[in-house]
């Protein structure tokens, strides 16, 4: 399961662009801060590599290994 903290995310889209399995998708709507928070739409594709966690400059991502 992927948890994304909307209070920390600044919408840079680094996770959306660099996840090797295209798990994230940019939201169409803006949140109250005026930011497009990514949506982990294809969670089933996630390999739990944690690249997104390591790259996210705002420490907003937690990938929970629930297998």
């Amino acid at each position, binding site marked *: 399961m992927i948890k994304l903290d909307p209070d920390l995310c600044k919408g840079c889209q680094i996770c959306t662009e660099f996840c090797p399995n295209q798990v994230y998708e940019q939201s169409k709507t803006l949140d109250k801060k005026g930011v497009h928070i990514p949506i982990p739409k294809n969670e089933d594709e996630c390999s739990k590599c944690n690249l997104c966690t390591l790259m996210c400059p705002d420490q907003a991502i*937690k990938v929970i290994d629930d297998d």
Partner: protein
Amino acid sequence: MEDVNESPFIKYLRKDRLPHIYCAGCGNGTVLNTFFKGMEMAEKDLNNINMISGIGCSSRIPGYVKCDSLHTTHGRPIAFALGLKIGNPDKDIVVFTGDGDAAAIGGNHLIHAARRNIDLTVICINNSIYGMTGGQISPTSPLGSFGSTAPYGALEKPFDLVDLVSAAGATYVARWTTIHPLQLSNAIKKALKNKGFSFIEAVSQCHTYYGRRNRMKSPLEMLRWMKENTINKTKADKMEPEEINGKLIVGEFVNKIQEEFSETLYNLIEEKSGNRKKAIKSAYQGE
């Protein structure tokens, strides 16, 4: 305590101060993550780490970390770190600095600390610009790049920081970028373990001040540039100079064992006075 729902790096941070001040997509936050990852890999305890920084965006990092830190004057973090290490040889001292702080204002401290091979880990986040003060050209801005002080492109040849500190005598030297977070973490691990002067150049994106003026408006464009224009050292060593022209060479450049300064100094104290402990007047011991 780690909250299972939050990033594994939050437990090392002063949560009440987040989100940090960095622009959306700034590489400073990524380098910070790689530091924690490298620290875990090196099995170092954050309680034994002291972070020192100078002035600049990257120098604000220690303020967010749950450890003792010093935010010092511009260009001087290595000078402070050196004193701290000599007074407290058992501490792991980490310097967070930027290209302006380390190579311009503090260039002298950088080369002399490398020459002494004192046990410090210096992480220089190189974004090729003075970000905090509005995009002035720094000593690592590429020739011809644009900045607020170079409307016609930079006229000066930049420093190659890896060459500079290697020549000065550093015993661990590596360069990676924010598009190589795993390699960067691994290099930080080795730097923390090296008993001597370790220098990590973390090439990072400042799209706000560097990218915007250099046809890369977003952090994604800058990261794509890094992905396409970096060559691993092992590969670059076999290539012709014209093939690597304009490319960024990444990898490990120096990894050697040599006598370390604080160790040598304490050995001398012991030899002359017979009491090693007496020389350590640590702030932590209260005297």
